[in-house]
């Protein structure tokens, strides 16, 4: 498998340097790398549309891929599996990723469970889920409109309430 096969469009913004696939938006942003025939996509929250395009293309060509936080593209980063799981949840709680992945029919939590099975870190899911879920469900009282409001949309909050059950089902399957 080669990195050039992963490029989803004919755009000149995509380029490959030193074994990493980059997308140029003002500066080169690392998007993907290949390690032991497995594609690792850097889940960059600043350019969600490009990441969703890349994921759609990877699903189309049928390769095994997982996500990593963008900070892991730097070789000096300390490797911690908990950071990856937290980044999965944080990205999923963002509007653009939530809508985009549901639109293309990508099971992000299934992907997370597969990655945890590969890395033997399934117990870390629960604690990270609790942390992010607490943040998502948080509401505050808006005195201007006299009601409880949240910074996350209702769909995302509803999804996060039952998300751990979905993860457990993915674990069994």
């Amino acid at each position, binding site marked *: 498998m080669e990195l050039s096969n992963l490029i989803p469009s004919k755009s000149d913004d995509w380029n490959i340097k030193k074994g990493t696939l980059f997308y140029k938006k*003002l500066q080169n*942003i690392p998007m993907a790398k290949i390690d032991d025939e497995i594609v690792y996509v850097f889940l*960059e929250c*600043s350019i969600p549309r490009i990441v969703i395009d890349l994921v759609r293309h990877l699903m189309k060509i049928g390769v095994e891929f997982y996500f990593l*936080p*963008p*900070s892991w593209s730097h070789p000096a980063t300390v490797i911690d599996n908990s950071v990856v799981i937290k980044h999965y949840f*944080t990205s999923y709680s963002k509007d653009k990723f939530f809508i985009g992945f549901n639109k293309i029919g990508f099971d992000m939590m299934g992907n997370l469970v597969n990655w945890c099975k590969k890395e033997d870190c399934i117990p870390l899911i629960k604690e990270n889920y609790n942390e992010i879920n607490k943040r998502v469900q948080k509401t505050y009282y808006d005195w201007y409109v006299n009601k409880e409001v949240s910074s996350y949309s209702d769909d995302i909050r509803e999804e996060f309430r039952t998300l751990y059950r979905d993860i457990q089902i993915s674990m069994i399957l």
Partner: protein
Amino acid sequence: MRDRAWRRYKQDVKVLQRLHDIICTYGYGRKDENGVYLVNPSIKSFIGSEEYCRFKTYTTDKHDSRYKTKYSPNKKNSYYRDNNKDGRRELDKVLFLKILKEYGIK
């Protein structure tokens, strides 16, 4: 050619320039879009942020470009234009044609 690619390039140049100007104001660091706290934020950490989107759509507030008298020969509506001001090419052209007519060249 001033096509779409050229316009995008010029917009990127402008956004980069504006981002360079505000980077020094984040002396205590900044959280990027991925939730990572950076002590010395770079331009990359601003991509996709609120500032990045704002800088793309900002209109100019400089007097020389905002209140500039724009000239176009195809413009239908007439408007006031100070032709006596030096350095205008169309005025130079009128003078040049006058001189040419005087000497019978044109």
